[in-house]
């Protein structure tokens, strides 16, 4: 391992990915610095998840270009060494996991474990701390598949902590959660980011969250990088049109002073839609 202290933890240069002849990512060049909070946004099918998974070396299809993880080309990493640095935090999906929370988190100490040795006391200590830190100690003895989505998402975050990873690659961490849990999870991530210098890369559909939380935002469209910069620069009608291909309504956030998106068309578009509807109604008659 070299250059572990490098300031740039993820770097892509002209990185492309094609799956079954279809171009999923095209000529992506970007740098992510240590301790940054990065959100990846973009319309459905833009390649957000593929890019996120690429940062954890989950690559399929034909790859071209370069991708460095902590200063080392992705091909050269040993899987268990990479796991000590970066962790994918999946969506709180409904996959069946037949283990208790504690068993599950202990399993995530895999990169530090020897196949024939019993658990080291340090493994238990790290897992206990991860549970305290994420507020999951209360259901340590419950089976994973009895948890709610919010609880499950917290355990997934605890697993990244237990693993000792300082790059968290999060796939829509707040989708499917109620507002209470959304707030919980977001403050948990923000805390890790601010206090423990964890680099967060999160795919999200919620541009408002992204604007409020992130240091920088990556916007993809049809596999291309259309925007990479600070949040205040993305909330502009022309930029949003470039990303989503539609004009969207913007209002000012009452406290943060940042523009917020309302998932609604602009008044002009609304008028056109009304016209089109009226025409359609007449035709029906």
């Amino acid at each position, binding site marked *: 391992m070299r250059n572990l202290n490098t300031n740039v933890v993820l770097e892509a240069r002209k990185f492309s990915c094609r799956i079954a002849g279809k171009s999923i990512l095209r000529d992506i060049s970007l740098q992510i610095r240590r301790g940054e909070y990065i959100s990846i946004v973009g319309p459905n099918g833009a390649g957000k998840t593929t890019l996120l998974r690429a940062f954890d070396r989950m690559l399929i299809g034909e790859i071209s270009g370069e991708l460095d993880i902590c200063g080392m080309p992705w091909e050269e990493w040993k899987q268990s060494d990479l796991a000590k640095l970066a962790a994918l935090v*999946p969506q709180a999906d409904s996959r069946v996991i037949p283990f208790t929370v504690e068993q599950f988190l202990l*399993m995530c100490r*895999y990169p530090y474990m020897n196949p024939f040795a019993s658990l080291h006391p340090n493994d238990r200590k790290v897992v206990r701390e991860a549970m305290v830190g994420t507020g999951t100690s209360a259901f340590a003895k419950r089976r994973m598949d009895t948890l709610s989505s919010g609880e499950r998402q917290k355990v997934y975050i605890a697993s990244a902590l237990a*693993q000792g990873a300082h790059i968290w690659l999060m796939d829509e961490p707040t989708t499917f959660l109620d507002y209470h849990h959304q707030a919980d999870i977001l403050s948990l991530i923000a805390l890790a980011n601010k206090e423990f210098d964890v680099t967060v890369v999160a795919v999200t559909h919620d541009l408002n969250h992204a604007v409020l939380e992130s240091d920088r935002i990556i916007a993809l469209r049809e596999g291309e990088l259309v925007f990479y910069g600070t949040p205040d620069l993305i909330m502009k009608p022309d930029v949003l049109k470039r990303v989503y291909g539609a004009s969207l309504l913007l209002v000012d956030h009452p406290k943060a002073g940042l523009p917020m998106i309302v998932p609604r068309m602009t008044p002009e578009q609304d008028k056109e839609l009304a016209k089109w509807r009226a025409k359609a109604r007449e035709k029906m008659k």
Partner: protein
Amino acid sequence: MASQGPREDEIGPGWTIGTLFGLAVLAVAWAPFWGMEHISFSALWGNVDDSNTSYILWNLRIPRVLMSFLAGAALATSGMVFQAMFRNPLATPFTLGVSSGASLGAVLCYHCGWSFALLGVSGVSVCAFIGAVFSIVLVYALTSASRQGSSTATMLLAGVAISFFFSSLILFLQYMSDPTKSFQMLRWVMGGLQNIVGFSDVLNVFAFVTSGCLIVWYLLLDLNLLSTGEDFAFSRGVNVNQVKVLLFFSVSLMVGAVVAICGPIGFVGLMAPHICRLLIGADHRRLYPATLLFGGAMLVVCDTISRTLLAPTELPVGILTALVGGPFFLGLLLARRRDLGTV
């Protein structure tokens, strides 16, 4: 559905494994003396050439019991590995075509009337082993050739398709053969341990089973993570592709060797791991020794019953494993009310 914590932590998994170990030792120690003709312990020290009972004990009974333990342990282990690896409660090497490949090899051998022996192994077993290896390689090649979708689903589907294809070839060969050969084929396909004489087969299978089991032992932590999902395991540091290939080939070869000698004995591989999961939980570091012991002991007991129940005739052991294991498993399932869908 708030479950009050897993039972395995309350009872202590050590006790369950200890009990299973005791039962397995008891079964293996008791079974050779039990049979159509009960043999006393003194036969152990008798001269094999002089005494009939000593001959039966050392050349028929003991090798057969050892073989049934090995076969049961290997089949149960293979089921446990494949269920975790494919995250599918129905996966076993049999669903992936190993048994139908072996059966096709054996049936082809009977049909063509080949009779030979290779290194002390009968021609039928050699052909069955070649058939098993052939089907393993075929399933793997088909999966690698199709580069789309999830390879796990592709592999299961390829295995099932090949299984059906081979099964119809077997039926075709049976149909085309004369009644004597046809019955030989039918008997082989039912599986059984009636052909074990002496220790040479046992030693051959032992080599395959130990190497397979050692590889599985080394990869228990990987299996735990694989059973939570491949992406998750990958991100936790498991070299997923390498581990899967290693497990697939070592376990399939182990089962291929067992099936070549004993025929396709069903149900143990599918059910023993599920029964043990209900008893001890899904953590492979506990589940593995439990499954190994339970599978071995189960087949020893079933085989002993199968050769005594209708004595002097023998009941094919595969019939018995399903007859005994099925209700036992269903009872356990109802008593525990735990979801079978969990691998």
